[in-house]
């Protein structure tokens, strides 16, 4: 790969946006939130982020929001991620590795089915504020 210039990046961006307008948008309004606290990083959250981006790129899904957050309180099952897909319950997955990331994209985001063997429910009790912090 030759060193890309900012101008080339701009052209690629424009090309991608044109393609987007022509396609049915898969993954729109879906969100993947990766726990990137010290505990997450130590357990391998970075390769998980890489894996999500790689699988989504491979499947040409450009519209999933991929963001990071700190520790979700489930340090014992890191790396943890939250997946939010319209029409489905919000789920926190734990012990996620690159292979699980692929499974989550294929089964949860595309297939609309939960990946039950990695579900770890909601954030731990000591992180949740009483009455939602009000």
């Amino acid at each position, binding site marked *: *790969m*030759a*060193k*890309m210039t*900012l101008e080339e*990046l*701009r052209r*690629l*961006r424009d090309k*991608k946006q044109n393609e*987007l307008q022509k396609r049915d948008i898969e*993954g729109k309004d879906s969100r993947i939130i990766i726990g*990137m606290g*010290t*505990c997450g*990083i*130590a357990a391998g959250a*970075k*390769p998980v*982020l*890489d894996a*999500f*981006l790689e699988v*989504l*790129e491979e499947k040409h*899904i*450009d*519209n*999933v*929001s*991929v*963001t*990071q*957050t*700190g*520790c979700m*309180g489930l340090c014992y099952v890191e790396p943890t991620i939250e997946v939010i897909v319209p029409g489905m319950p919000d789920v926190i997955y734990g012990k996620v590795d690159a292979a699980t990331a692929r499974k989550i994209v294929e089964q949860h985001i595309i297939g609309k089915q939960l990946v039950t063997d990695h579900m770890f429910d909601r954030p731990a009790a*000591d*992180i949740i504020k009483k009455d939602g912090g009000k």
Partner: protein
Amino acid sequence: MHICVGDFLLDIVQNSFEAESSQVELVVQETSNILYCSVQDNGKGMDAETQRRVLDPFYTDGIKHKKRKVGLGLPFLYQATDACEGTFNLESEVGKGTRVVFSFNLEHLDAPPIGDLTSVFVALLSHPLSRSLVIQRSVESEKGSGMYTLDKDELQDILGPMDTSGTLSLLRQYIASQEEDVLQLRSVIALHMQIDSPQSKQQEM
């Protein structure tokens, strides 16, 4: 524990984001035997007492997680630099910001692998709490020297918000091409030299 230098960078730069900084600068300079890093922010800073305590893994300000008693980011980093006879220095002033400068002795057997910096930079630039971030990366060896700069404002101007898979893939592609370009200059590690002069206690045993 963190494995790569990249893991430490990801962790430490997030401290700057969380300290309400509007400007963060990360420098990663690699020579054939030293990896020098610096993280500077204009966030809220720390007083002398806090600076003294942050290297204690059982110290935390208790703001993020009220009932938890650990703060492992800086202690992990300090431990890793210490293990390979690198350097670590923390300077901070309340209201002005913090600067953490550290280096790894790459020739030391206990030096962590550098890891994939492309994905670290993607994660940092797209981090929801990062406002203005400038990353300067350089590699210098007997083969020559090369560097590149990533400026979040500039990249955001081209890509728009960096929060969807498509945009992040483009960002990744761009950074990977910059990183690949400087990595051509990385010198080949002479493993035979390390075997002649053991530096690690583990190896002596």
